[in-house]
């Protein structure tokens, strides 16, 4: 197999595995801030025990996230040396900024939060949980900046055989940074809400720690509904509009629009085929895509046939990942909306079917994150930096394919083991339950 393809596979495995964990930690950390706030301000032991309980889940997830994140930091150099040389003047900065401005904060205060209980005042303890959440959220910002610059590069000029920075502000706030940032961080909130809701539902189903679990569930369904509504509108909507404007090839691919047309329809359901590209069994709403993308039901939308074949991203994977993400996004609104209705009617605690549904829904937001990431990154192909550098020109020239293959095998085995252990330990931690209340 050729080295570029192997390098891509390696990258997909390492990011794909890593990206399981950050949405959980970012979302969970904000819910933790709310729990610890209640515990501190109301001097309420139930909230405080809830914080400590979910804090343990956060610590375990954070550790795996950090461990796999280190690989990301170095992989641009090991596998994508030509890329790193060509865009290093711009791309390295957000990674360094992430370390200086965010990651120190997050990991330093996580230590203080986990081990500081009893050593520092309760206010300071709450503050450290806040700093963990703030650090995680700033960290996401710089990573999204780096990735968005690959999608919609700005603030640079090609000079001395490489891309050189001309405006840091323009590079940081490139056209896709903010739409993608809000969309991603809000997705993390949805993820965190489903983790808390699922765990609380599990405790309720076993009639354990009911007072604690009820409050946690209440918090999670309310946050979950707000976050999953916002994920569709405004965040998802504006992100899609931005893609339509700035990356028309990607937009056509994810929407399955293979021929340019006015009054372009949205495919609610379809089976995509690639040779030739077409949708079969499609259920479509005419004009809706034109309206959603450009605010006019008659607006022309560019289809795949508009672009030279060498610039077209893979069609099947982008369509399937994007559409399944959207389906899950709608499901999150319905699931959390149902929860809020039950809550208002005072029936949330006894609907066992609904509680079971929540338990089984825990992994779904993570799946949605992975699907969204797949649509975004595969949709960017064949470019590593859209319009500037092709993925095929970006890989390291000195790393033999055999070495990459060997490390793919090694890391896959390691990740499978880690993923399985993480899951087992998370389940055990939940089964173990919150620390009992002091008599």
């Amino acid at each position: 197999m050729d080295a570029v393809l192997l390098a891509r596979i390696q990258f997909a495995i390492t990011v794909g595995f890593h990206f399981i964990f950050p949405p959980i930690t970012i979302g969970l950390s904000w819910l933790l801030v709310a729990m610890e706030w209640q515990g501190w301000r109301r001097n309420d032991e139930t909230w405080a025990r809830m914080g400590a309980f979910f804090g343990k889940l956060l610590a375990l997830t954070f550790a795996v996230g950090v461990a796999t994140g280190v690989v990301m930091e170095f992989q641009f150099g090991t596998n994508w040396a030509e890329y790193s040389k060509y865009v290093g003047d711009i791309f390295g900065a957000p990674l360094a900024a992430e370390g200086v401005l965010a990651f120190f904060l997050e990991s330093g205060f996580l230590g203080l939060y986990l081990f500081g209980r009893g050593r520092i005042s309760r206010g300071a303890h709450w503050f450290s949980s806040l700093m963990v959440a703030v650090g995680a959220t700033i960290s996401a910002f710089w990573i999204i900046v780096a990735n968005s610059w690959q999608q919609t590069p700005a603030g640079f000029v090609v000079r001395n055989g490489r891309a050189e920075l001309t405006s840091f502000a323009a590079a940081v706030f490139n056209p896709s940074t903010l739409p993608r940032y809000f969309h991603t961080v809000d997705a993390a909130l949805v993820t965190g809400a489903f983790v808390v809701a699922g765990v609380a539902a599990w405790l309720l189903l076993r009639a354990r720690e009911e007072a604690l679990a009820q409050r946690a569930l209440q918090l999670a369904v309310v946050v979950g509904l707000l976050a999953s509504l916002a994920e569709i509108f405004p965040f998802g909507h504006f992100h899609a509009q931005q893609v339509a404007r700035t990356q028309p090839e990607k937009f056509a691919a994810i929407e399955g629009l293979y021929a340019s047309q006015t009054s372009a329809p949205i495919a609610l359901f379809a089976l995509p085929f690639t040779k030739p590209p077409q949708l079969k069994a499609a259920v479509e709403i005419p004009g809706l895509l034109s309206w959603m993308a450009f605010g006019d039901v008659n607006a022309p939308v560019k289809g795949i046939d508009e672009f030279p074949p060498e610039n077209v991203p893979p069609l099947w994977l982008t369509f399937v990942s994007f559409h399944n993400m959207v389906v899950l996004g709608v499901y999150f609104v319905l699931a959390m909306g149902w929860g809020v209705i039950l809550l208002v009617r005072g029936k949330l605690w006894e609907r066992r079917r609904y509680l079971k549904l929540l338990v089984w829904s825990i992994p779904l937001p993570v799946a949605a994150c992975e699907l969204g990431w797949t649509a975004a990154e595969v949709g960017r192909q064949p470019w590593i930096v859209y319009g500037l550098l092709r993925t095929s020109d970006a890989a390291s020239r000195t790393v033999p394919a055999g070495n990459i293959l060997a490390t793919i095998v090694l890391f896959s085995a390691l990740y499978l083991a880690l993923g399985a252990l993480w899951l087992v330990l998370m389940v055990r931690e939940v089964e173990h339950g919150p620390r009992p209340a002091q008599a």
Partner: protein
Amino acid sequence: MDLNTVWFALVGVLLTGYAILDGFDLGVGVLHLFARDEAERRIHLNAIGPVWDGNEVWLLTGGGALFAAFPVVYATVFSGFYLALMLVLVALILRAVSFEFRGKMASPAWRRTWDWAFGLSSLVATLVFGVAVGNLLRGLPFDADGNLAIGLFGLLNPYALLVGLLGVAMFLMHGATYLTLKTEGALRDRMAKLAGDLWVAYVVMFVLATLGTFVAARWVFRGPGPTVPTLACAVLLLGAEFVLPLALRDRRYGRAFLASCVAIAAQIGLAAAALYPRLVPARPDLARSLTIYNASSSPRTLTTMLVIALVGMPLVIAYTAVIYRVFRGKTVLGEHSY
């Protein structure tokens, strides 16, 4: 001082910060294998528990800073050292998770497994860092396009291994000295004795590695003669090496740990002063080296990043200091311990 030199110094500071901070927890990671019972072992682990995560961020940030300031070095060295770096990454992953996983089950076999994973991965990471420094000082064989391709075994030459062992001795000494601050009674006395013995090993390795440098990296000693930074680092290094055993003898453990920190910083400073203005010396032709000028980012990027560093790093140092202050004193096992 020009911008490129400032960034040479800043990357140096980040990597020195990493060596001093993660240095002791790598050392403790190896030493905990020799703990006599479970309680002792948990004291070892909890002595570094609240801080090891933050310590590792220094490496991540150092890597990020290297990428931002000297992207050609980041790209060339990391792709050239592909397998060695992957080995380090596996070690760092295992280290991070074994710390978190070990305490989650009570079974002795489970704990033994993660103990070994933690100890060995700490050892491998320490050794490879030293081996990397040795290879750097020895010079690296660039091809005509300025690329590097060195297999894992190409890195394992005798000189680099010697520097690797020096690194192991140094971090073990550093870890044992740190433990004298965190332990009490008989365990502390044992750690103090161990730190003294490791000091002997470190000094022996230091002399051997210096002699090795004469043979394998002669270029280090050529040049216009010793500069002020070289002399300052040499004086600090010798002073710290002298003070450390005396402080241990006098039971002045804080001073001993400080001496160990200074020794590490001065040792890295010496290597950096020898390299400057090169970042990666080329062999056999030194003229092909990657320097802070031919491998750097544009002045605009270096300036922007300098502003970020000047705003961010004082904050980082301030709250890191606060966190260390909160966790100062002896390690006591409690409900929230690992």
